[in-house]
């Protein structure tokens, strides 16, 4: 029963919190750039405003174009439902493990990419093509991170891994560090952050994600944006729960522990947001064809993480 | 001479009819001036021979000093009579078109028909002879008769082919005789003087007491001698040209029957070796020659531009496989070899029937000028395709069964030998398939053929082809038990 309640709370929490996280990152970045920046709550207003606007779609668009925003959002949301945030006691946890999580994000991307190609413009195709290139390396990297975590903990379920790390069964290991590095790189790529992509640009040569969704407007655009925000939150939660699950409530926790878990989650999320903003401000975007080096590096790191597992095991 | 007649004078003996009718036919046909009638007589005589051969299944005559029938040659005699008969039917249709196209003159045909029967006689005699010497004489006579038929067209190529055939086979046959004499010498101390020491039925029983070293030597000569006739590389040179330049019915019987007869002779000697038991194993020699034939033919197939030479080389390939198989020995492999002989004979003659019609239709033997047969002549095209696939070793046709047995049983015993065998088969397969695909498919070229066949002639040309293919397909899935038991008996004797 608590699991059901906690699950519902969790589902609502990620969605409710997502715009705030994005707003926070934007705010910190603005401050770092020496600007005053919008309020962290500005994304909520943006989304609401977009919802009120009439949606304009091209003549050549098919139903996929109209369905894609909702499917994307639902898929990302569904993925977010299974990543523990403040408690590991989630009803839906057994429904999908990390492999399924990767695939659910893949589902969202699949639809966005199709939507990018649906209207039949040069930019849409360009965005889709680059997005799929990034995914083709980021996905394996993330799966390999999962692999090394599963080697450490014996499980691929996010909740189980968090519980395992919490129980102190791992301690500090090279393997875990490498996996974390790979995971961060994947997260950057998946969320279209610098140096892979710049969420704030509409410069034709540099955009990836934005090029795909260029044709969207009104409520469709709102859904796409919201999906992006949820995805960012999801990855922060994921990094939080896999690598630093401190403070998380466990099954059978009382109200106080849950409150601690909630607080820890918020703290971790905003801290990660700050780090992200710092990171993004300090480096420049890459050329498209250097993605392969960056993400290939992530893949190799993840692979190293699995192999280092034996090294530490042998010692 | 008198002794021959006496031997044949048992009226109940079907061998009398089997050997007598082609001999009488040869004489009769030499006298018949009209080629149309001659063609019909030719068919009738061959039919009588076939009928007589089939009675062997009912009643097997007791062996005499000169002639005998046992499990080995009974089906070969029947097969020879059968292919002889179907070929005579095909030949009638073929000759009609050739004559219409003025490529053959009636005077040639008289000679041709007479020689055809004489050739059948010599082969049947070689198969049923119970005397190594008679067998030798018969094989030599078979060479002579076919030389004359190969040169029938009197073109420069035909004469050259016949000449090559004649010289090479004469030398070969000479060496075979030397081998035969050696066997006699080996047998003579045990069996005593005279015909006893040359009778297969008697030799086999006492072969264990023969001087093994003499048998070794004899076998080499027999192998090179009869091997020339079989077409084993590097003794094969006469075969492609003789097949290619003669009339197609002759190519069919050369490939389908004469090679078998020569191989039969070789195998009879191998039986003696096997029965002796103290000789050097003949297997390695046969395996070596078999493989060399297989590979030589396999590579040659890739460079052939003439449709009849293509299939002549395919015959070399198959003779190589069969020789290899018997060289391997053992119950399974020997069975496979016997099966392969039969299947190759039926399939290859069917292919030559088809090739005859095809080249008459297209007016050329050049493979490059033959295209789209399944479009222009659907029945012929598909049947030809089926026949070539059969000879290439695809199921459900009979050759596959024997190749299956050979390759798998060899592999179980000598993987290092099976590997080249399988590679060689694959090599030949690739060549044949690439050629047949080009001929059977694609857009047909405008036909430049000569002589529109009458419906009757068409039926006569297609009937033998269909009959052979039906047998081949059925045999691939089902063998009559009696044939199986013969094969098994012989396989045991072959060691």
């Amino acid at each position, binding site marked *: 029963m608590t699991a059901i309640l906690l699950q519902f709370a969790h589902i609502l929490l990620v969605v409710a919190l997502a715009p705030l996280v994005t707003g926070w990152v934007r705010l910190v970045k603005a401050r770092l750039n020496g600007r005053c920046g919008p309020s962290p709550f500005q994304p909520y207003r943006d989304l609401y405003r977009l919802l009120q606007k009439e949606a304009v779609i091209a003549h050549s668009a098919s139903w996929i174009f109209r369905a894609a925003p909702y499917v994307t959002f639902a898929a990302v949301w569904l993925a977010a439902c299974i990543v523990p945030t403040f408690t590991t006691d989630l009803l839906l946890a057994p429904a999908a493990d990390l492999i399924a999580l990767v695939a659910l994000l893949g589902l969202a991307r699949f639809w966005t990419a199709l939507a990018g190609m649906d209207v039949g413009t040069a930019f849409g195709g360009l965005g889709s093509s680059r997005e799929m290139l990034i995914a083709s390396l980021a996905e394996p990297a993330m799966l390999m991170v999962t692999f090394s975590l599963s080697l450490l903990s014996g499980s691929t379920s996010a909740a189980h891994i968090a519980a395992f790390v919490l129980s102190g069964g791992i301690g500090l290991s090279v393997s875990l560090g490498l996996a974390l590095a790979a995971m961060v790189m994947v997260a950057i790529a998946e969320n279209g952050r610098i140096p892979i992509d710049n969420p704030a640009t509409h410069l034709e040569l540099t955009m990836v994600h934005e090029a795909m969704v260029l044709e969207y407007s009104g409520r469709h655009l709102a859904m796409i944006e919201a999906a992006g925000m949820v995805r960012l939150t999801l990855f922060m939660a994921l990094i939080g729960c896999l690598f630093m699950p401190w403070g998380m409530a466990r099954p059978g926790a009382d109200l106080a522990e849950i409150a601690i878990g909630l607080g820890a989650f918020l703290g971790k999320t905003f801290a990660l947001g700050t780090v992200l903003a710092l990171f993004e401000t300090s480096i420049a975007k890459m050329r498209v064809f250097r993605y392969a080096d960056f993400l290939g590096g992530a893949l190799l790191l993840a692979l190293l993480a*699995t192999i280092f597992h034996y090294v530490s095991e042998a010692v | 001479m008198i002794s021959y007649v006496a031997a044949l004078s048992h009226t109940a003996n079907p061998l009398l009819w089997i050997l007598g009718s082609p001999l009488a036919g040869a004489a009769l046909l030499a006298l018949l001036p009209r080629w149309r009638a001659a063609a019909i007589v030719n068919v009738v005589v061959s039919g009588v021979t076939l009928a007589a051969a089939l009675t062997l299944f009912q009643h097997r005559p007791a062996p005499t000093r000169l002639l005998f029938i046992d499990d080995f040659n009974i089906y070969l005699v029947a097969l020879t009579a059968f292919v002889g008969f179907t070929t005579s039917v095909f030949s009638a249709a073929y000759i009609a078109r050739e004559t219409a196209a003025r490529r053959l003159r009636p005077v040639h045909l008289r000679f041709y028909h007479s020689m055809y029967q004489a050739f059948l006689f010599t082969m049947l005699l070689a198969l049923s002879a119970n005397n190594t010497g008679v067998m030798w004489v018969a094989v030599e006579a078979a060479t002579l008769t076919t030389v004359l038929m190969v040169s029938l067209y009197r073109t420069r190529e035909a004469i050259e082919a016949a000449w090559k055939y004649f010289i090479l086979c004469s030398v070969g046959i000479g060496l075979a005789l030397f081998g035969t004499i050696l066997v006699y010498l080996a047998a003579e101390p045990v069996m005593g003087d005279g015909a006893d020491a040359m009778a297969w039925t008697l030799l086999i029983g006492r072969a264990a007491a023969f001087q093994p070293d003499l048998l070794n030597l004899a076998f080499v000569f027999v192998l090179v001698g009869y091997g020339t006739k079989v077409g084993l590389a590097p003794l094969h040179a006469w075969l492609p040209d003789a097949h290619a330049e003669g009339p197609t019915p002759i190519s069919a019987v050369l490939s389908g029957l004469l090679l078998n007869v020569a191989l039969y002779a070789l195998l009879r000697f191998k039986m003696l070796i096997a029965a002796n038991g103290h000789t050097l194993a003949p297997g390695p020699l046969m395996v070596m020659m078999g493989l060399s034939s297989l590979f030589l033919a396999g590579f040659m197939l890739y460079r052939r531009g003439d449709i009849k030479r293509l299939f002549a080389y395919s015959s070399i390939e198959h003779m190589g496989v069969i020789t290899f198989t018997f060289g391997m020995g053992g119950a399974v492999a020997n069975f496979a070899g016997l099966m392969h002989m039969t299947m190759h004979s039926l399939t290859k003659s069917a292919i030559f029937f088809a090739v005859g019609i095809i080249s008459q239709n297209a007016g050329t033997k050049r493979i490059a000028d033959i295209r789209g047969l399944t479009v222009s002549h659907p029945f012929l095209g598909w049947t030809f395709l089926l026949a070539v696939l059969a000879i290439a070793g695809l199921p459900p046709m009979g050759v596959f069964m024997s190749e299956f047995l050979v390759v798998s049983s060899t592999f179980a015993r000598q993987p290092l030998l099976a590997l080249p065998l399988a590679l060689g088969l694959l090599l030949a397969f690739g060549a044949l398939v690439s050629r047949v695909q080009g001929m059977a498919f694609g857009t047909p070229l405008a036909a430049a053929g000569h002589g529109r066949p009458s419906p009757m002639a068409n039926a006569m040309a297609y009937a033998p082809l269909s009959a052979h293919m039906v047998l081949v397909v059925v045999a691939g899935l089902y063998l009559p038990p009696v044939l199986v038991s013969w094969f098994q008996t012989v396989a045991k004797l072959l060691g």
Partner: protein
Amino acid sequence: MLIGALGTLLVLAFLGAVLGRDKRTPALVHAGCLVASLALLASGLGHLGQPTDAATTMVLPIGLPWTQAHVRVDNLAALFMVIVNLSAAAASGFGIAYAGHLPEPRRVTPFFPLFLFGMNAVLIADDAFTFLVSWEFMSLASWALVLSDHTRAESRRAALVYLTMAAFGTFSLLTCFGVMAGPGGDYTFAAMRAHSLGPVAGSLAVLLALLGAGSKAGLVPLHAWLPLAHPAAPSHVSALMSGVMTKVALYALIRILMDLRGDVGWEWGAVMMVVGGITAVLGVLYAVLQDDIKTLLAYSTVENVGVVVIGLGLAIAFKADGKTTLAALALVAGLYHAINHSVFKSLLFLGSGAVMTATGQRSLGVLGGLLNRMPWTGAVMLVGSAAISALPPLNGFVSEWLIFRALFKGPTLSHWAMKFGVPVVGALLALAAALAAAGFVRAFGVAFLGRPRSAEAAAAREVPAPMTAAMAVLAVLCVVLGAIPVTVTKALDGVIEPLTGVRFSVSANLGWPWLSPVSSDWGSYSGTVLVLVGLSLFTFTIALVHRLGTRALRRADAWDCGHRESLPDAQYSGQSFAQPLRRVFAATIFRARERVQMPEPGDCGPATHEVSLVDPVWQGLYASIGRLVDYIADRVNHLQFLTVRRYLLMMFGTLVFLLLVVAIRQQ
């Protein structure tokens, strides 16, 4: 029923050949095939549920004289009968309407039933001879089908390469059976199971089985024929060749490596995993770069076969290591993927047939915008594309999930090579899965979305109902197999038990509908729950958005960042979509090079852009063999043109050589 249905197929083939002239024959024959396939499907399903020891051998009085034809339907055969006949039924149904659209239906009608017959016969064969005859029957019938469009030179070339490779495969299998049967020639499977082999012979048998079945399945580097032959056949046949015939090959692999030989070593499992991994990645890389839809699909088949083989290799390695439960898991994963691939690959090929029927085109470069014109075909193709991209909640994901699940336990294997190798194979598999998604976004996006790139594509109309119905059935199956995985894995119990020796349930301790292999602590998945939750989130989102915001919608010209561009050619094409992938992945493997030639200033001519790819496998292996054969053939050919005297010399040489051999051996 089984024999009756098989007999019906033969009769249909005969009728197809004899009544070819009649215009109604193709439809009738395909309808007959539909009925026969359904009967066989029912029979397969019936046998699938049987107790594992219930299968009996039937002996028919044909085949090898002293062995005769043995026929037996055990659970493994039953499973593959289900796989085969499911797609066969769909393809037959599709063919009822489709065969009429073919240029030469007479060249298809007789062989289609024969092809079905061959595949089914392979599955029920219980001795080596029957097996191989059926196997070649299958090859031969499909070869004829590849040649149905025989006036195209590419088809003929494809057919030639195909048949030669098929012969290679047959010889490999033949020798493999030869090793297993031993010199005595006892070719029944029962005898082979009882026969024990030494280590060398055993390894040889495994190697040959891999070569034989692998060449039919399309394992790299034996795959070269597959992307030539599969696309050359009519689409409903391509569907069967790609979706089902490769499965028959995998069946052969499982039959030999896990049933007939019970003791295959872990190192062969490792070999299979490596080969499978390379196959998967190379296959999908080829696929991503193709412009022809059917070739693309064929290469994707190569990829999926690789994935299944990874599963099988893993199963063998686990089994050799004594970890039977994990072996069962890996085997289930492989089998599940085989089932799935047969469904969605058949679907996609049928869809490509529909596209060809509607447009006459199969090159991505001239398609586009078909979703608006062919809504049903588009929808089912979308399902197929998503399924093959391993997206939840469809079936492709379930099997990939299972394979990853098993793979992640690979490091528990005792050998160090496996501990280090398994993660690498895992990375390859992950890469392949991700690239597959890219490839199918590209294929579906370019063909069905955007604006039409040619008049044919613009004029496309939806195909007749029987065709869409056949595809829809498969699309529904993609969803169903994804949504209720536990039901499927339960049905596989009877198949895996005799092979791995354990009674194993994939939903270990959570029960229906949770897929939790071995232990739920290891991670679990439930397609059913995901579908339900996902649908509710989806509905909730739509409801919420429509409640909070406006529902107004306006159609306008595309925005395109302000560029007003009416030329459809300005869209991203298949080539341009592939460009980043090509640069990243193909530059080294395929030596992909691009050459841009800009016209001189003042020159009004168009600029040209050329891409050159070198297929390393074809160039490195097949072309070299071809050159070698050519070279030797040229040399050997001189022997045809010698003089009589030289021929005599050869004879003399042979004689003297043999005499010397005898002389030496006598000493």
